[in-house]
């Protein structure tokens, strides 16, 4: 009996150790990635990065100002297009068509889009927008990002609305509130934190996307605020600079990588803290 007990304890102990090890492994990976980003990227961090343009080769100074601006502009426009669309679709799935066949199909298609390889979305926007309109543009880049934002927001909006208890809706309806106001004033309000979390997560997701921008917004060496033309952005700049022979460029690539990771991780943390506050209430 004792031997059996000991062997059970031993097995349990070893499995626990393995679980600890698995977690440690995951954390070590995160630490390693952040460490190499910091150790390679911090050296290049200075005001120049935010004020100067991407340099030509062979020069020792220069920054990422145009790329940072382009990334911010395209990401915000992409989210501004994609998020409302995603929210509306999410509202339909959760509020109007919850039990319709159509919603099942939309839900499934949305999940497919959620995991569609981003390079394919880049190809799609290239063929559907860039070619017919006759040029690379910041708008095309923003559209490609919007296509990625939509399914993320659809899903989180629907999930969050489904968490809102039906009694709330029924109470509002009983008071004579029309359906659209029940949704806007009651259901969406109750799910607000969760929906915003979803939008933030979507923003974080697209801020670092490279593949969809390669064939849509291209990049730009100079300061450009014209979204109708090719526009610089961080991921594509990093992609080009990291393969170059020039020390300045490679340094900028690492610094850019550090910046973008910090930005994305901060968004992630903010989103999750927001989301967690809701569930704790």
């Amino acid at each position, binding site marked *: 009996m004792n031997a059996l007990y000991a062997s*059970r304890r031993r097995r*349990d102990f070893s499995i626990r150790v*393995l*679980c*600890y090890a*698995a*977690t440690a*492994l*995951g954390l070590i*990976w*995160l630490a390693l*990635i952040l460490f190499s*980003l910091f150790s390679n990227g911090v050296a290049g961090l200075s005001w120049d990065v935010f004020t100067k343009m991407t340099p030509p080769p062979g020069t020792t100074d220069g920054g990422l100002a145009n790329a940072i601006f382009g990334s911010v502009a395209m990401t915000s426009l992409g989210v501004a297009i994609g998020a409302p669309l995603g929210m*509306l*679709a999410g*509202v*339909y*799935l959760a509020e*109007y*068509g919850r*039990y319709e066949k*159509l919603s099942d199909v*939309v839900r*499934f*298609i*949305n999940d*497919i889009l959620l995991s*569609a*390889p*981003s*390079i*394919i*979305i880049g*190809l*799609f926007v290239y*063929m*559907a927008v860039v070619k017919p309109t006759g040029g690379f543009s910041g708008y095309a880049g923003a559209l490609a990002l919007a*296509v990625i934002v*939509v*399914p993320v927001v659809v899903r989180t909006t629907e999930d969050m609305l489904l968490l809102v208890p039906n009694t709330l809706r*029924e109470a509002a309806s009983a008071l*004579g*509130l*029309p*359906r*659209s*106001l029940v949704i*806007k004033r009651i259901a969406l309000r109750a799910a607000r934190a969760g929906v915003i979390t979803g939008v933030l997560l979507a923003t974080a997701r697209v*801020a*670092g*996307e*490279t*593949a969809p921008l390669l064939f849509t917004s291209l990049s730009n060496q100079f300061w450009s605020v014209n979204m109708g033309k090719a526009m610089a952005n961080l991921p594509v700049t990093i992609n080009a600079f990291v393969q170059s022979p020039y020390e300045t460029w490679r340094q900028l*690539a*690492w610094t850019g*990588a550090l910046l973008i*990771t910090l930005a*994305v*991780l901060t968004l992630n*943390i903010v989103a999750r803290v927001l989301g967690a506050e809701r569930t704790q209430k």
Partner: protein
Amino acid sequence: MKSRLSPEGGPVTDIAMKQAPLGAETAQRASALASFKLGDRTFYWLTRSAAMGVLLLLGGIIVTLFSGAWPAMQAYGLEFLWTSRWAPQLEPQPILGALGPIYGTLLTAFIAMAIATPVGIGVAIFLTELCPVTLRRPIGMAIELLAGIPSIIYGMWGFFVLAPFLTNHFQPAMISLFEGVPVLGTIFAGPPSYLSLFNASLVLAIMVLPFITAIARDVFATVPPMLKESAYGLGCTTWEVMKNVVIPYTRVGLIGGVMLGLGRALGETMAVTFVIGNSFRINGSVFAPGTTISAAIASEFAESDGVHQSALILLGLLLFVLTFFVLAAARLMLRRLERRAGG
């Protein structure tokens, strides 16, 4: 639960109309109700068209891919699937086949899942059963942050940091360990390579780990506490509770989660492109360079034209179909679990 108000909010309007008193107020009230009705209609159609928009989006992507892939389909037919040569430079007609990229895609995804599944579930067990409550959120969040890092960063890191380490330390050790052993000797055959299927798989494993952990945590949470507590009450150890109660109860959901991770692993582009080596030749060794469908597209699309480009788009379509089926299976399984948890 299943109450369904009509979109126009019919009942509310009707009752209000019937009980309205006569006089000047009636007109006012009627106009207010009419504007409600209009607002209701507009909002309903707005959301409905947004939902249809999602369908159109996928339709658009598929149509675009299909039209782009058509020339290659005509040129190669079904043979495309099992031709292993990739010779885009041949005149007049290049010989192109998808076997190499398909092999690479499946192999890297398989190795990545083999590594990430036990680790991811291990982390989930740690977080739900072993971790002190105060640490649960920070550690859980840290693991989820792994999913937030942009894939180009994984690519850079894999290329500059992970690949040199694996090539100089891990690979030689494995190669010498299995040298001369049948089968394993071929799988782990040398020479070590900076760019290889194995290195790509490991980067992929790190990338899908947080997805598996997140879903495993979610499905573990669906186990009724009573079941677990009863098992503990009988004197089961933590592992025994996991093995005999939690995992059997959540099995379908776990498999669904793994499939969802698999869907990610199949389609990942930038990170893999950095470390895989884009070689279309199929070599038994995991330390040899290879390619995946998405890496092939990312590497060659810019410099391709004609049938070569069409074949790359066809590869994209294949990837889409592949992920489609994997995800469909994953969703069906997760839904089965949801239904059980809900019912």
